[in-house]
């Protein structure tokens, strides 16, 4: 489910957040963080989970990179036909 929040609303909030005016960005962050009550463990859990996912994905990528790649079997070359 992509959620019901309209793209325009998402962009608006992000634009506000990404605005170069650092002070305003900081205020936005502060407001958002202030809204997270001390008891909002669900949000913290999500963030921890995402960091855990990143770690896991890194491990998967590293595994793939270190795993020796199977070399393709090369077909034995045919003997040139007699007389050629």
């Amino acid at each position, binding site marked *: *489910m*992509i*959620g*019901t*929040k*309209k*793209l*325009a609303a*998402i*962009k608006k*909030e*992000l634009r506000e*957040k*990404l605005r170069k005016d650092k002070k305003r*960005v900081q205020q936005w*962050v502060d407001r*958002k*963080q202030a*809204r*997270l009550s001390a008891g*909002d463990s669900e*949000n*913290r*859990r*999500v*963030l921890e*989970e*995402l*960091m855990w*996912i*990143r770690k*896991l*994905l*890194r491990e*998967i*990528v590293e595994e*793939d990179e270190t795993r020796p790649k199977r070399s393709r079997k090369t077909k034995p070359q045919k003997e040139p036909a007699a007389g050629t």
Partner: protein
Amino acid sequence: MAKAPPPPLSSVERRKRLRRIRRIARKLGFHGTIEYRHTWSETGGAQFALGPTPADDILVVFAEAFERDSDPDDFSLEAIIAHERGHQLLRRESKLSRMVTTKIGTVSEEILASLIGSLIAEKEEDREVLYYKALFDMVTRGMDLAQAVRLVDDLRSLLEKIL
């Protein structure tokens, strides 16, 4: 007050919608059953349901997906379906499914589905909005901007390497 049902649709238009959904979904690699339901869903426009086998997976697209698609300030049908295909890849791609099946929650799964959607969507604009959607879901969870951007970029690039 409940939203009034979507305006009636002729059977020709209904088939046309279904054809368009199927074309997009197949192009994105979706396998399983694809349906169109002419009702509001409150899901955002589409829903993926995992079946016992990949062939039994179901993608249901609802009327609001078309309503949103017609609004230039909202997600396109392609972006909505790419997000749902993201869910299917999370569940069906062996390297990813092992972490999704039991260990991660709904919010994280939604973020990852958007990021996968941002990798597989055909149009650059859809890729971008799905990336923003993932970023938005993170910052509204209280993550600071720099941290969220770093994390979303890391996750996206790792998923790109895996897929």
